[in-house]
């Protein structure tokens, strides 16, 4: 009993000392909630003196929140947010450029191209098509293998995709199609696809979730979600269309104005270490450091060859025009059916 008390007192003391020595970082993220504990724990294995306080939400909400907090930023670091969002923040002057240790080991595609980059990449999430095998069989649908397949009349009313005006995943698809096929062909393809779409959703993971529960047969979504749902037991086939896949980098950055610069830099340094890359690789098939990635369950082994040469600059500067044109063509029309 006495020992126990002593031990308890000691632990309490140590905890107190620990708490005092710790720097707390407020980290905004859009990484899956289930992965956050793992990320922080692995980081703490190397840096027990920095405590990561997560604030997590979906990409759109976290980005809106960061922008709204512009005058008085609350986050010290952003760890795990879409490159497009970070580009927005960079243009608003909200990021502190920093060249973390080991920057040279990252693939050029996965970092801000400035000499001292404003953000550095972690991994890529890429487009994928979730197909419900049970419903496909029920409806006698062949397994699609390409984007072009999805415009075939046989799939009419069986496809769901995210609205690019609400969802980053939706925009990633549209931008990839326009880049791969060229503007005219791209819109022509979408006209064809539109004929088969039963509805557009406001969230990028929703189409895959709908496919998983049989609410639709085919959901245009992203690979990570498809793989996770399949792992949970959904009767899904995750299809990677042969023409190529749109993708987006997930990245880390320091928020301008942080008063914990040293700790923030430590975190960003760690976020691109080999260890970190291996950790990202547990859920994502493509990571920012070449040569690290091992094949991931439910992902294709040649994932890196499937993704297109995405021109983020082009996508960012044409975003507004693309979205307006998209809304003009497809928004609100389909109710007439």
């Amino acid at each position, binding site marked *: 009993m006495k020992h126990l008390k002593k031990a308890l007192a000691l632990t309490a003391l140590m905890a107190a000392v620990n708490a005092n020595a710790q720097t707390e970082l407020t980290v905004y993220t859009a990484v899956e909630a289930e992965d956050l504990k793992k990320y922080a724990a692995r980081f703490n294995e190397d840096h027990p003196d920095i405590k990561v306080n997560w604030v997590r939400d979906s990409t759109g*909400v976290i980005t809106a929140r960061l922008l709204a907090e512009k005058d008085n930023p609350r986050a010290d670091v952003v760890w795990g947010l879409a490159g497009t969002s970070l580009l927005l923040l960079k243009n608003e002057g909200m990021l502190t450029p920093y060249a973390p240790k080991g920057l040279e080991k990252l693939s050029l595609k996965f970092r801000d191209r400035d000499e001292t980059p404003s953000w550095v990449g972690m991994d890529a999430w890429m487009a994928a098509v979730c197909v419900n095998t049970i419903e496909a069989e029920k409806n006698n649908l062949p397994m699609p293998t390409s984007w072009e397949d999805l415009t075939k009349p046989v799939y009419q009313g069986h496809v769901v995709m995210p609205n690019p005006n609400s969802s980053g995943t939706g925009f990633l698809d549209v931008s990839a199609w326009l880049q791969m096929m060229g503007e005219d062909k791209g819109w022509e393809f979408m006209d064809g696809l539109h004929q088969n779409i039963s*509805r557009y959703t406001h969230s990028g993971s929703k189409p895959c979730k709908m496919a998983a529960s049989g609410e639709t047969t085919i959901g245009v979504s992203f690979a990570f979600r498809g793989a996770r749902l399949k792992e949970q037991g959904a009767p899904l086939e995750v299809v990677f269309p042969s023409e190529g896949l749109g993708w987006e980098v997930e990245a880390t950055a320091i928020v301008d104005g942080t008063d914990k610069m040293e700790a923030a830099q430590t975190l960003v340094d760690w976020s691109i270490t080999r260890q970190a890359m291996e950790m990202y690789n547990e859920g994502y098939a493509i990571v920012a450091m070449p040569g690290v990635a091992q094949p991931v369950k439910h992902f294709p082994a040649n994932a890196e060859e499937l993704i297109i040469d995405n021109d983020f600059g082009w996508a960012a500067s044409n975003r507004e025009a693309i979205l307006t044109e998209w809304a003009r063509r497809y928004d609100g029309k389909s109710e007439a059916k």
Partner: protein
Amino acid sequence: MSVFDPGKSSMIDSPSFSTPATRNWPTLAELRRRLTDRWVFALLLVIGCVVLTLLVLAPLYTLLSKSVENKAGEFVGLENFAHYLSSGGIESAFFNSLWVAGLSTVIVVSLAFMAAWALTRTRLPFTGWLRGVLVLPILAPSLLPAISLVYLFGNQGVLKSWLFGAEIYGPIGIIMGSCFWTFPHALMILLTAMDNADGRHYEAATALKASPWRTFWTVTVPGARYGLVSAGFVVFTLVITDFGVPKVIGGQFDVLATDIYKQVIGQQKFEMGAVVSVLLLLPAMLAFIADRYVQRKQSASFTARSVPYRPRQDRMRDAIGALMLTPTIVFIFAIIGMAVYASFVTFWPYNLQLSLNNYQFGRMDGGGWGAYINSLKMALGTMLIGTGLVFFNAWLMERTPQPKLLTGVFQFLSLLPLAVPGLVLGLSYIFFFNHPDNPVNGIYGTLFILILCTITHFYAVSHLTAVTALKQLDQEFEAVGESLNASRWRVLFTVTLPLCLPAILDVALYLFVNAMTTVSAVVFLYGHDSQLASVAVLNMDEAGDIAPAAAMAILITATCAVAKLIQGVLRFWVDRSTRAWRQGME
């Protein structure tokens, strides 16, 4: 409810007119005391206005002012509006919003009126329990009906055939979902309006040999008309500003509220989001003015001479009452039941094995039990602070002499939050409370700002309930009090508060359960140590963990149900003691 009530206010302003036969002229000292009193009361209401301005108007201004600015923050006049109106699709979104909200309002108010009638004008047994069941929808996070509706009527739904080939994704889903979650709001207002009926009117009707049907149209409906208008106004505004239901189940059916979501969350265009928010205020504003116009003539229905109405034995009428309640209760049970079932299913619809696994929140992420505790704290804080604030302000407005203009301003401020979508309110709070020059910016990211935001978000209906209850008390209570030289304060604590306790308990419960379930505004405001259970539900659903999301939603619902039970017991006790009090008075 009513804003300007000239007849009434002049009556309290000059007490000598109110009960002329029995009054003596007050002495000069007495008059002076009253005059100071009036100043104090007016000052207190001014403070109330300032508080609401800080909680509603100032934050809103920071966001809505962006509607006339470009991205760089320069003033551009109505350019954004022109741009938005010319972008097309707006007509359909505006029209869709109007007819969906309109139809939902008609359905909800009819059902709620039928239910309120059955609960207050018949002698059905177990009304306490029935009331409990009927408010169940308000106890559930908004995602719960969405999950249930898909499981019931979706492509794999068990009742899909009932839609005759129509799709749940679209207006049908939006209307069903909206009806589900707004029903208790309407019911609460109608019950408050109908609970204290004056038995003498019914006695008169019986004496005049009016048929039950005629009595219904000449006594019951007119007595409830202000409640009906208010309920309609509230439901319409709630539906038109809500983006939760249309986002989850509306498919690509465009409404104004989802347009805000597209602009702000999808494209980070705050200025365009502000434009749509302003447009969204218009129909809500119209409803507000219409409500004000109709409410003008309202006067107390429950006077000092009233006799509480006790329905007589009538089997036939009770049977009709039961019939009126049935569709609503069946619908509510179907939705909640389906969600309970969903929370046990391993993987809908392909592995229907039942298990308790989904209730192990420790293993799930999105905050787990910690988030649940935070939610409890937040809800209790909202309840305590909110109820006090709402009731005191409503009392100042209704039961003390106030300049007309001031009550008008106050009424406007307290109803304004109703017309503000949660998403807009949340963002406004960032702009306002996180501003470096705001002296209280330290509260940003704490539980306290979540409490403030939630009180504001749900202020309007709480205010309406409190005002409805206060209005039903005869102004003579104060007049008599004054003649007995009892101050208004004393009347407040000895008469008004006890008589209003049922309504106060209603408001407290309303704030508690809404704080437990709310998502749209708080999603922008929680910090790393103030995650909430309702947000966790959303996150888990987003991650595809539908069953654990349903489980957490059920846990929240169960917690709210316990709160409702406690409130029910308290209410029963209060009802009994005030009944004794009332009878003692006669």
